[in-house]
């Protein structure tokens, strides 16, 4: 990669790279999920097949990052036809390559469309992708994350070139404000407004920070972007730095994403070598550099002041934000902190203009950046849904469309119970919210929040009380422990919920839970504490019946709360096949071959293995 001396060089290189387009392109996805399912062996197989076929240059193999459809990773796609092979075996690779060279497909490897039963041939007709609007995430299909050339080839860094050559910082800020882009970290603060106040703030030395802590359990959209398309984040940060007048940038990646750290560091080095970072970027005199900081494993460091404290080398302890970080952030200097996805949106807004951006999403942002939720949002659709993965949808889409159309409905035909959005700071929405358009204000209205895009679908087998308890025990570990309400309040709330789950609930516990939740949310120092009660409050609001079942009838309808469930075998249905007997970890089941078996209640740890493994669902749980 040669050093780009001026803004024009980007466009010239892009054209040059696109000149010799190979006739056939074979893509193999190797995200984290892919690697764990043998993506490496698959890539080798395809490579050897290509070598054997001797394609003399007009076929190219591209190993991409995560393509979002985690269920069936690794994926092989043959272009330009677009044949879509979900999770092929390494030894099928040879056949795929031969047919691909001839422009033909291997039908036996296609997946079946569950509702129509017909095989799905190409990418465009994969239901999971069809309903999405992959503005940001789409680029992952065309990029090898370790090569900056790929990124430039698809138009990367032209936004930066355009900004440095034609636009003034004020112009950039105006464009971003008019686009109505709001923070993808979860609070949804209009990015343009943030940049404007940071630019106004006094102080020569300013910073831009990329919050890649993504501590929300169940959310991994940022990981997909960082590992799939690191350069888009770098370009976004460079433009942001130019706009607010910052010279230093920090990317704070959580320690649980080692691959993301590695790929981002490589990308930064490549960008420096290419003259897109460091001194005199593209000959424009603008100097900006990026440091990669690894988080230490603390959810609280997702909060802006805690994150900055961590970069400053201290523990992640938030401070009162009466003086906003745009005025006094990192080392008391003005700092603009945005989420990975927010930064990734910036190049698109610059390239295609604010007007284009406002066409996607809800509300009217002319004149009032808070007026609506514009652009797309990447959700991590997980939990009890058939197709799990990263889903990029326009703001305003309904939950039902995401879960059922894209997600393919609830797994093994169970009944939908609820969906959790916004991580531990969000809430659980029930059936009646399925037609709620997803945007910042609507979700907050319903008691949840957008958060970092986690969307955990739950079915009848999930107990809402236990789910609330899970979130509180998570927060109990992750609270920084500085302020009394969060440190003490969360523990006591979790204790009450544990009592409820163990059937030891006392009179008035629910009311106490309500009062305590309100105090914790209103008096805590930072957003972690302030939003900690959301899961409890929303489950209390929308699933009151389950709470009553636990408290009054000492029953757990979903059979999750062990203390309240007992397992017994229905003698009529039991065929004595012995599967449960074999799998029971604490050998609490007794019975002769072919005779109805029996569970010894005292030894049974209620782990539910028998219930799952019994094919004749002879195991009754109540």
């Amino acid at each position, binding site marked *: 990669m040669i050093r780009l001396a001026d803004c024009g060089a980007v466009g010239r290189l892009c054209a040059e790279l696109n000149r010799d387009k190979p006739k056939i392109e074979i893509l193999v996805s190797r995200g984290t999920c892919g690697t764990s399912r043998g993506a490496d062996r698959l890539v080798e197989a395809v490579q050897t097949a290509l070598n054997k076929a001797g394609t003399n240059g007009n076929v190219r193999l591209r190993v991409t990052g995560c393509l979002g459809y985690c269920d069936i990773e690794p994926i092989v796609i043959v272009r330009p036809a677009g044949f879509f092979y979900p999770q092929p075996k390494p030894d099928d690779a040879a056949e795929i390559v031969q047919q691909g060279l001839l422009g033909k497909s291997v039908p036996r490897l296609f997946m079946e469309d569950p509702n129509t039963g017909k095989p799905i041939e190409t990418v465009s007709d994969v239901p999971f992708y069809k309903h999405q609007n992959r503005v940001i995430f789409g680029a992952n299909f065309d990029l090898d994350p370790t090569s900056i050339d790929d990124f430039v080839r698809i138009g990367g860094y032209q936004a930066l070139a355009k900004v440095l050559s034609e636009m003034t910082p004020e112009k950039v800020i105006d464009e971003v404000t008019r686009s109505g882009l709001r923070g993808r970290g979860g609070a949804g603060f209009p990015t343009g407004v943030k940049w404007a106040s940071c630019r106004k703030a006094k102080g020569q030395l300013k910073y831009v920070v990329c919050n890649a802590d993504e501590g929300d359990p169940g959310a991994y959209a940022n990981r997909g972007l960082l590992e799939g398309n690191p350069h888009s984040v770098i370009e976004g940060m460079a433009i942001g730095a130019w706009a607010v007048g910052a010279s230093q940038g920090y990317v704070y990646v959580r320690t649980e994403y080692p691959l993301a750290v590695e790929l981002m560091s490589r990308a930064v080095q490549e960008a420096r070598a290419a003259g897109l970072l460091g001194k005199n970027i593209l000959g424009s005199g603008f100097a900006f550099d990026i440091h990669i900081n690894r988080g230490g494993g603390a959810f609280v460091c997702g909060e802006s002041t805690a994150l900055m404290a961590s970069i400053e*080398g201290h523990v992640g302890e938030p401070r009162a934000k009466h003086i906003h970080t745009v005025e006094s952030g990192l080392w008391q200097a003005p700092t603009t902190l945005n989420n990975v996805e927010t930064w990734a949106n910036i190049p698109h807004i610059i390239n295609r203009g604010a007007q284009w951006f406002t066409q996607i999403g809800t509300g009217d942002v002319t004149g009032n950046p808070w007026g609506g939720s514009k652009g797309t949002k990447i959700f991590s659709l997980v939990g009890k849904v058939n197709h799990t993965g990263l889903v990029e949808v326009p703001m305003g889409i309904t939950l039902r469309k995401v879960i059922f159309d894209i997600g393919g409905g609830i797994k093994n035909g169970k009944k939908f119970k609820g969906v959790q959005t916004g991580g531990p700071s969000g809430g659980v929405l029930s059936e009646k919210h399925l037609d709620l358009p997803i945007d910042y204000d609507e979700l907050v209205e319903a008691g949840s929040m957008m958060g970092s895009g*986690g969307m*955990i679908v739950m079915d009848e087998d999930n107990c809402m009380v236990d789910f609330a308890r899970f979130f509180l025990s998570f927060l109990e570990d992750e609270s920084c422990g500085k302020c009394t309400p969060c440190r003490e309040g969360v523990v006591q709330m979790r204790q009450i919920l544990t009592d409820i789950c163990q059937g030891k609930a006392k009179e008035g516990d629910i009311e106490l839970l309500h009062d305590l939740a309100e105090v914790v949310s209103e008096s805590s120092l930072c957003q972690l504490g302030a939003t900690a009660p959301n899961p409890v409050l929303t489950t209390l609001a929308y699933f009151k019946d389950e709470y009553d079942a636990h408290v009054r009838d000492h029953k757990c309808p979903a059979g999750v709360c062990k203390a309240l469930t007992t397992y017994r075998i229905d003698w009529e249905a039991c065929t004595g096949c012995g599967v449960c007997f074999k799998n029971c970890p604490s050998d609490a089941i007794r019975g002769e071959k072919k005779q109805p078996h029996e569970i010894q209640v005292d030894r049974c740890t209620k782990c539910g293995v028998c219930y799952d493994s019994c094919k004749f669902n002879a195991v009754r749980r109540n």
Partner: protein
Amino acid sequence: MIRQEQRIGVYVCHCGTNISHTIDVETVAKFAETLPDVVIVREYKYMCSKPGQELIRQDIDEYNLTRVVVSSCSPLMHEETFRNTCEDAGLNRFLFQMSNIREQCSWVHGDRKKATEKAKRLIAAAVKRVHHHGALEQRHAPVNPNALVIGGGIAGIEAALKIAEAGRKVYLVEKEPSIGGHMAKFDKTFPTLDCAACILTPKMVQVGQHPNIEMMTYSEVTEVSGYVGNFKATIRHKPRFVDETKCTGCGQCVERCPVQFRPVDGHPVRRPEDLLSAEMKIQADTALDEHRHERNPVVTVLQDINQLFGYLPPPVLKYVSAQLKVPLSEVYHVATFYTAFSLVPRGEHIIKVCMGTACHVRGAQRILEAIENRLEITAGQTTKDMKFTLETVNCLGACAMGPVVVVDKEYVTVIPKDVNRLVDRIVHEPVPV
């Protein structure tokens, strides 16, 4: 040198009986007459009295004496008196000499003969000495109008007030932080049982406010030079660290000072670098040198050390704290705050069970319990043979594949049913690191 003719008058005093009771004044007088240049010798009961002095004045006129010798008490007592008498009579006050035949003769020798003998010799000496006296003029020096009072107890206060009231400037030097001396410590005073503070404090305040008194507390006189009327005193003001002119005495600082006890240094402690083995030191230095230029790189250095050693050995933390000049207590808090760090050695292989929401919903708890039962350790512990460390993580970011277990670098999806199979595989042939 030629001897001039002198006309000397000698006067021998009886001093009541103080001299005459052991000295035979007549013989002494008679002897005096035999001395050279002696023109008149008189003896009188009280030379220092008015008539005694009158005798001298008359003789000076009458016999125009050029020298006078008075033999009586100690010059320390009446030299001044007789010099004035000579001066009144027109004779230069320094043409006069006394001889001490009382304190150093009559009072201290019982033997009348020997005492008289000694008196004669003393007078002879005085007469011979006065021969060579020359006229001298007294010198005068101006007197500096200020006064210095050393010590701010009740006596010093009284003196300072009296002088200041007379309109003179007083420097009152007190070595303690406040005037008042010992009396300020008394409760009552005898015999009237007055309360000491009630009678002393008004005077102290008066001193504090008196325009003529410059109070110099917490100070001491280190040097005094010069002579009566023209002393130059050097005063050292010990640093009080509080500006007296600004302080309002509100006591806020005393109330808020957090130190309650005398700070005492701990026993000398071995330097951090001595606690490290050479090999550990090299590794620690590599981590430190990489980030030394950054601002307060505690977290990043600890990340590298956690990687290099597999955990954070306490001696290394002490070394890092010293090298980065960050208090050990802060480094320790960082080391125990972030879950990525461990203070105890970890096993060869790290098993991480994801407890994130997605994995939880798909039964992560059961998988954790199964592994715990199998390895007989709970989350956060390491097997006795140091082969495996079991940890829980709150989200690994591979939620689609939930429930997920990561063994060293390998991500594994685990279905609750076959968790035992997974554990067997891990225990028997662990994945190469």
